């Protein structure tokens, strides 16, 4: 089955892509570039960097612009998926949804309307187990944004390691944060992994942070042979 992966460049969509590639053919990646930083559906930090990730993965990318306004952006998502269906003949889509019923239900409806299969290979996964699996399999993940108390600036640009997962586990226990960040607490960006033909090296980046909200902005990066 030919599939299109809804792709933000973060760990969940990359890992969903990995699982889809194990079982099926991933014909394209689909990225929604939102003009709204607080998009309800679409991850925003470093979203323009998915272009280089697609090159690293050697999978075609459909990059689609959206205003990011609630509900209107769903029309844009539908148009992007329909474009993937027409251009690449995809029969289904793949998402990195874990717990979000809000996101999952909306994508399921779009898939139904377009007569496509919908796969959520991380659905209901134990989040800490999933994070441990991710790094044990060789995915190199950095924190590209924080958006909740008590994340401080030290998280920005930090690699997701066993120690960071231990810290996330502690924050989950103390503050009920969602350790995978699906609740919008944090965002990630993937630089390397078993499905990457080449890895991504960050050449230049900057940080901005205030009041438990910050971005790690990748300004320059390049592909490196593995």
């Amino acid at each position, binding site marked *: 089955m030919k599939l299109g992966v809804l792709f933000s460049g973060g760990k969940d969509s990359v890992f969903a892509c990995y699982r889809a590639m194990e079982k099926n053919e991933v014909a394209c990646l689909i990225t929604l570039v939102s003009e709204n930083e607080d998009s309800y559906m679409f991850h925003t930090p470093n979203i323009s960097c998915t272009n280089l990730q697609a090159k690293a993965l050697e999978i075609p990318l459909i990059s689609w612009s959206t205003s990011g306004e609630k509900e209107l952006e769903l029309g844009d998502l539908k148009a992007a998926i329909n474009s993937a269906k027409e251009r690449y003949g995809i029969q289904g889509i793949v998402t990195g949804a874990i717990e979000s019923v809000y996101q999952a*239900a909306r994508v399921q*409806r779009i898939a*139904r309307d377009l007569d496509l299969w919908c*796969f959520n290979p991380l659905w209901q*996964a134990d989040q800490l187990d999933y994070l441990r699996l991710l790094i044990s399999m060789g995915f190199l993940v950095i924190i590209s944004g924080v958006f909740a108390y008590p994340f401080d600036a030290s998280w920005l640009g930090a690699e997701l390691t066993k120690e960071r997962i231990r810290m996330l586990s502690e924050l989950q226990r103390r503050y009920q944060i969602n350790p995978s960040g699906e609740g919008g607490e944090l965002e990630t960006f993937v630089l390397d992994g078993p499905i990457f033909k080449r890895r991504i090296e960050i050449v230049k980046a900057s940080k901005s942070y205030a009041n438990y909200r910050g971005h790690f902005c990748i300004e320059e990066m390049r592909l490196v042979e593995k």
Partner: protein
Amino acid sequence: MHRGDAAGGKMILVLDLCYEMNSLSEYEFVHPIAETLKRSGFCLEVMHYKSMHRGMHSGMQKLMHCKEIGKNDMDMDMDGLEKFSRVILCGTALKDNIYLEQLDLFHWIRDWKKPVFGICAGMQVIGRVFGGNIVSQPAIGLEKIDILEDSALMGERREIEGYHLHNYGVTLPDQFRLLAGSPVRVEAFCHEEMPIYGIIFHPEVRNRWILDRFANLVY
């Protein structure tokens, strides 16, 4: 001590109803059920419904031995099911209704005396096996569910919210009681005499307690 002991000292069979063995859908519709039961301490085995008859699932013994006595008819030996204390029939992707074309692979449910629990696609299978009809009934997302009577599976009468993901429902077969929903929109049912249950929504999303209750059923 594994809570398999509480479930009759035997394993729970988690049956994958997805379109093919080891499909991408297995992560979404089978693993969450299996993981929930494992976290609660129950022993279980996962198997694809087609491998029940072919014994093809790697590393697993044949669940049943059957010989063809007609083109679509099977004579089954229930010995292979003995090791299990109960069976859960999992759901499938919205576009996946292939299981409905292979109902002869599920007729064993009528003769098995131990608890069976069908989720979404699994409920449709149970309904069809006992004479219910598949009806168009699309639903996606969280919806209110009216629990109409007390039961071992769903507890006391009240309203809950459950995650729905289906294009079809099933009518209430003869000999079944409506546990939740309405006669034209069956959310949950149970057999009047046998420990057979079905729910059309997905308990692995926000209602994992239903899986625990099924695993702990006394019968």
